């Protein structure tokens, strides 16, 4: 792993009386994907806007590739790409027209801007729609155009604020593929998302933020390990629920959650329990289990646990 290319230290930002960020720290090594997770209003967009020089922090500082986002904003802008929460392209222009215009605004000579537009359209599968106005594009195509607009200059760092919100699974998969390709080229990506599986698939590291602060960081596996494995039990007879709950409670040391009329789930302590022991204990108590399974927690469970200190309710 190389040195951090994105560094934020103690970022504070408030809007009127509302604190959007209260001391946010972030560090992203070059060439990796950092997933920023957080519930609505956690401060994800605010953080991205500060890092992309659109907004100044009230306190704290941030550097991109060594350049300060406030004092050396111009240098930062030459090295970043930003795809915001909405597809920021000109609806009235064609896809090609947009790329050519932004290419010119990135100060590429005309011929080169045109060539780069064609390259990108071709590589990201938009050539067929290149000469249609963007207003007639599907949501997925628009997002893809928005994304490739950031790539005109091959940025060192790419900020993606919820790049796949509102897309169907297929378009989402296509965006993911594009992001993976970029990372293979050496681009560092900082992406915010509401979809935990997105972070799970793409991110090398995850920062969970809530109320404007980072509350946990680590690889997806490390985060999952922090809350221990999950035990799911499906009963043959829902009437046995109270007995089953008692058994699981003594085993795990915490109250299990009822996820269905005949299903319970509980987080197990990090000190591993063997499946066989669990089945035996249930048997002893006279609980007939149709299915008992031990699994890693999903990132959703980690997220819910971290952000509202409650067991997930399904």
């Amino acid at each position, binding site marked *: 792993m190389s040195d951090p290319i994105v560094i934020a230290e103690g970022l504070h930002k408030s809007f009127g009386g509302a604190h959007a960020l209260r001391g946010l720290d972030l560090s992203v090594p070059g060439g990796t994907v950092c997933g920023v997770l957080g519930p609505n209003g956690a401060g994800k967009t605010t953080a991205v806007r500060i890092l992309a020089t659109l907004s100044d922090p009230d306190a704290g500082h941030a550097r991109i590739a060594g350049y300060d986002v406030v004092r050396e904003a111009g*240098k930062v802008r030459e090295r970043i*790409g930003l795809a915001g*929460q909405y597809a920021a392209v000109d609806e009235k*222009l064609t896809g090609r027209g947009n790329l050519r215009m932004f290419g010119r*605004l*990135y100060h590429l000579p005309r011929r080169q801007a045109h060539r780069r537009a064609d390259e990108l359209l071709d590589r990201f599968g938009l050539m067929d729609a290149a000469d249609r106005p963007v207003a007639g594009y599907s949501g997925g195509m628009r997002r893809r155009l928005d994304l490739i607009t950031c790539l005109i200059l091959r940025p060192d760092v790419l900020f993606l604020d919820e790049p796949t919100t509102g897309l169907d699974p297929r378009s989402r998969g296509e965006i993911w593929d594009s992001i993976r390709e970029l990372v293979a080229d050496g681009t560092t990506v900082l992406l915010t998302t509401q979809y935990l599986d997105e972070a799970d698939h793409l991110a090398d590291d995850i920062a969970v933020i809530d109320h404007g602060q980072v509350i946990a960081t680590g690889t997806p596996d490390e985060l999952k390990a922090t809350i221990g494995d999950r035990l799911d039990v499906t009963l043959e007879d829902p009437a046995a629920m109270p007995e089953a709950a008692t058994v699981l409670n003594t085993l795990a040391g915490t109250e299990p959650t009822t996820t269905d009329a005949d299903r319970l789930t509980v987080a197990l302590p990090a000190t591993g329990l063997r499946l066989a022991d669990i089945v035996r204990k249930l048997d002893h108590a006279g609980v007939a289990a149709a299915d008992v399974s031990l699994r890693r927690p999903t990132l959703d469970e980690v997220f819910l646990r971290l952000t509202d200190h409650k067991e997930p309710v399904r």
Partner: protein
Amino acid sequence: MTALTSPLVRLRWTLTDGLTLVGRELGRLRQEPGQIIAALIFPVIMVVLFGYVFGSAIQVPDGGDYREYLMPGLFAMVTFSAVMGVMTRMATDASRGVMDRFRSMPMARLAVPFGQTGADLLTGLLMLAIMVVAGLLVGWQPHRGLIPTAQAFLLMIVLRYALSWVGVYVGLAVKNDQVADAMVPLGLPFTMLSNAFVPTDGMPGWLRFLADWNPVSTLTAASRELFGNPGAPSGNVAWPLAHPVTTVLLWSAALLVIFVPLSLRAYMRRGR
């Protein structure tokens, strides 16, 4: 990589980036031939609607032809449309994130407002040209020779440019294309409350006062005077109408002095 360092380089990029954005507006027009057709038909409709429908009922002060009286008013109306046009375009860019993309790019910052107002100037010239043709077709013409005629058009262009900066500022302030769209119809009463279509003599005192001081009236009066069209103010009239050319220049200067810095500040302001 293109660092914006020396002032000279910066100036050059402001110009080229501004031109790119002017080109963007032209590209949009090309994608929407409907808009060009509408731009062609609109003046014709206005000239016919006002010229023949109202014209049959309105008495022109000096007993002149109503369509000669009307055309300077329509020129003024087209000129003032700059505010709404630029406002909606700025607000759309701001609400769709396009403005944020511009801000996050290493482009010249001033290029966006200057490009937008420059593009509007081109559209304005096109609209004026169409309006002139429509006017000539229904019998309007300038009577005082080349220089005053050129002065009249120059006056319209100067004021239009100043007005487009009002549009930049308002568009940045509302930041919401829906609000901006909803504000567009407000332009109509503003232009109607003037001497553009009817003489103000018949209006109740307070209304007449507003109409006489309305800059739409001033521009209309100035071009009636310079074109030698009927209805040019004479006798005991409100100050702006007695000195219409000077007043239009004063308006233009005042709008530029106020709204250029305000708009630039609003555009460059960060930390929102």
